[in-house]
């Protein structure tokens, strides 16, 4: 295993992680809700869409974050290598999978692991393993 020192950003990533943890902490202690992006978003699409207002307020915060960021720092363009078709397939899989599996990187990863929830630990191991395997297949077997 070789470390990609050119792209490794330990301090920015650690600080960013602290902000994510702080957001999750404020959400559970002040709003009484678990910060899981796929669940918050999916609830807006539910046929009996109850309590949509707070979900929309959270979503609005996420959407304006880049604009607020650019007030203080430069926003770097994301490196998106996948083709349009790949992105559409990936989006469908992420959308369906996170709802069927009841969570994503925030709900299971950040909050679930912090709660030491056995379900979330299992889910995190499952999506990490699937992500690692997919990248290995796409980058090293098919390329």
């Amino acid at each position, binding site marked *: 295993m070789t470390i990609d020192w050119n792209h490794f950003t330990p301090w920015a990533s*650690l600080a960013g992680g602290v902000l994510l943890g702080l957001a999750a902490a404020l959400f559970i202690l002040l709003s009484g809700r678990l910060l899981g992006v796929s669940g918050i978003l999916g609830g807006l*699409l539910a046929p009996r869409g109850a309590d949509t207002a707070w979900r929309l307020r959270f979503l609005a915060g996420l959407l304006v974050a880049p604009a607020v960021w650019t007030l203080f720092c430069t926003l770097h363009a994301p490196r998106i290598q996948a083709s349009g078709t790949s992105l559409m397939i990936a989006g469908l899989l992420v959308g369906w999978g996170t709802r069927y599996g009841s969570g994503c990187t925030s709900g299971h990863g950040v909050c679930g692991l*912090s709660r030491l929830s056995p379900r979330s630990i299992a889910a995190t191991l499952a999506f990490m393993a699937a992500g690692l395997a997919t990248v290995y297949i796409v980058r090293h077997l098919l390329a």
Partner: protein
Amino acid sequence: MNRVIEFLVGLLFGLGLILSGMTDPGKVLGFLDITGPWDPSLACVMGGAIAVALSAFVLARRRTTTFLGGPIHLPADAPIDRRLVIGSIVFGIGWGLAGFCPGPAIVAAGAGFSKAVVFTLSMLAGMAAFEFIAQPAARNTPVLE
């Protein structure tokens, strides 16, 4: 008060995703590519997030109400089932294909990057498919948001 909090929490979470590098699929895939030149940054993201959130959830578990007096909604304990594992694997495959998970995709779409918008709209279609096509029984199991 609550109204401002949900917006501010979303904003804080979005800023954290940008600062950490999660909104850059190149960085996420660099973490998932352990046999290539490996970028361990995402381990720092998880470490930082869990270090802070852990104590908050310990505190939340001991309380019956929030600091503002409202109810605390925590998912009930449930067994690890096929649905959880299959859904998570399907999510992981999509994550590995694009390098986007839900939060960062929404933030990058909010920044107006067209490929992120394409991914996010497809993700919403996948979520809608779950709501309208998935077996109704699936909706009755406890959902961790």
